[in-house]
């Protein structure tokens, strides 16, 4: 018990260190980028004394440590500064754009898990069979082709070629702004508003990006599930389960799978984090108005506060998901207790 508390304290400690490192790195991004935040604020043509005054007012003449301190205390109070482009506080911009990213990534994760875990189990049980080969081939493209290539191919085939899905974006323009924002998740908000038209429109727009991301993640989940299962199926406890007279299916799902479920939690958490993180690329291809696109646009325009703020948030989510995986691991694996 004591040891358990200790190892958990160690995990928490490393999380804090990581978060600290993250804050330092994001702070440095803000300093070393070849963008002058003062000019960005006062405009390129401002006279020298105005620039100097603004510079002093922004605290940029202070020593780095002092600047870091004021940065971190602002962050801890939930203040990530203001965006020059949108003229909104970065925090409210993130709150506005994040649900779009979350909706896409979460659906992709669910789909990838529902397909990938069973596929990995079947591939392991029928190792070397035709089924295993087919699953392997299907997955190869998923983890060897970069996701933006898959996305572009997807658009080319299903939008340009077959016209099965609507084009880029999250909503058809007739539905734009029609559903009141409650959660920011369009599928939920449209249902709350009872607007089935908006619901199907959102689902239709989600289909292709979610499929592409799910395919990409499924390849990884399948491969890991297969590897974990192969390992578990080699265990002596599998022989004793069979020696008890259990059916093949009960041996696989009742004895081998519970042994890998815990490892899978970590894989799923990392996949989820990867999906949120990878949004930067996919959202550009699909013109998806999410956090990734917000970040890209800010970056292209030298709008530093959103860049720093978004990086910080994505990094914190990554750390948070890792911590969550660690906690679930402790809850579900009896060997850790």
């Amino acid at each position, binding site marked *: 018990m004591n040891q358990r508390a200790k190892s958990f304290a160690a995990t928490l400690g490393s999380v804090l260190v990581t978060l600290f490192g993250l804050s330092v790195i994001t702070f440095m991004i803000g300093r070393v980028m070849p963008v002058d935040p003062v000019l960005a604020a006062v405009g390129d043509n401002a006279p020298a004394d105005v620039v100097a005054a603004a510079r002093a007012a922004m605290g940029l003449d202070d020593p780095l440590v002092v600047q870091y301190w004021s940065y971190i205390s602002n962050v801890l109070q939930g203040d990530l500064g203001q965006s020059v482009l949108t003229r909104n506080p970065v925090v409210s911009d993130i709150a506005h754009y994040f649900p779009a990213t979350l909706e896409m990534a979460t659906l992709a994760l669910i789909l990838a898990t529902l397909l990938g875990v069973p596929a990995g189990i079947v591939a392991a049980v029928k190792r070397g069979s035709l089924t295993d080969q087919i699953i392997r081939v299907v997955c190869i493209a998923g983890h060897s082709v970069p996701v933006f290539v898959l996305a572009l191919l997807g658009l080319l085939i299903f939008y340009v070629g077959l016209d099965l899905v609507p084009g880029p974006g999250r909503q058809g323009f007739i539905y734009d702004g029609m559903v009141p924002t409650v959660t920011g998740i369009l599928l939920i908000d449209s249902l709350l508003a009872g607007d089935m038209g908006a619901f199907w429109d959102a689902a239709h727009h989600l289909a292709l990006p979610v499929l592409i991301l799910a395919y990409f993640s499924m390849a990884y989940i399948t491969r890991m599930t297969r590897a974990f299962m192969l390992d578990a199926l080699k265990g002596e406890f599998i*022989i004793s389960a*069979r*020696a*008890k*007279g*259990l059916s*093949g299916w009960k041996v696989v799902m009742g004895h081998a799978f519970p*042994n890998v479920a815990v490892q899978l939690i970590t894989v799923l958490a990392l996949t989820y984090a990867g999906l949120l993180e990878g949004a930067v690329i996919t959202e550009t291809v699909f013109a998806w108005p999410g956090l990734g696109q917000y970040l890209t646009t800010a970056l292209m325009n030298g709008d530093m506060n959103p860049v720093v703020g978004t990086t910080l948030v994505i990094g914190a989510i990554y750390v948070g998901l890792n911590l969550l995986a660690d906690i679930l691991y402790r809850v579900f694996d*009896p*060997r850790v207790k």
Partner: protein
Amino acid sequence: MLVDIENLRIAFESNGKRFEAVRGVSFKLEARQKLGIVGESGSGKSITARALMRLLPPQAQVTADRMRFDGIDIQSQSEREMRKLRGGRAGFILQDPKYSLNPVKTIGNQIAEAWRTHNKGGKKEAREAALDLLEQVMIRDPKRVLDAYPHEISGGMGQRAMIAMMLAPNPTLLIADEPTSALDASVEAEILRLIDELVDTRNMGLLLISHDLPLVSHFCDKVSVMYMGQVMEELAAGELAQAKHPYTQGLLNCLPSLDHPRTDLPVLTRDPSWLEEKAQ
């Protein structure tokens, strides 16, 4: 006749090379009889026992002129019927409870599962049966063990739990594959005595695999000595001293004795001609 095996052969094929691990093993076991199988590591003891329960991986090629358990032809049984035999009429105890018990399931659940597979009854009855079985194997603190995970109990307790699990459906044959080689010497004797008692009171047959020849002969009625996938010699347990085969004599001579201490143990000699004379 409980077990009747004639000319059992097991081969594995890897990278196009065929390796025959068991080459013509035969033995018989009457009901309530105890047969020991001894032999050095790799001589094919475990896979012989697993072949009898059809527990070998699919790449193992198994042939036999005859392989019967309780009059049932093992080779022609469907997988479904085999499942009734496994656990139901023959229990199989493996070497190391650390690996042979499922690490993420409680002992109670694992025993209850064995019971429910072969008996009609609900979860509650199965749990009661599991507790009863744990008491029968004389485990300390059976109520605690019921809800414990394998890593929370000692090796000796784990092996008792394993025995309880395999006794759940009342088998007529108990196969124990080196049931004590992962345990301390003091626990080893206790576990063997427990197995011996249970086999006697429940009128089971016993197939005891080990590499300890004197130990096996102490618990069994007869002993089969295996070497390189063949049976070198079968002896009544009391007649070890009269062993004719040089390999058996070699095994016996290699044992350090307290009565006649000697500084150097002789090296076990092996003669390729032993295998030829059997293969004819």
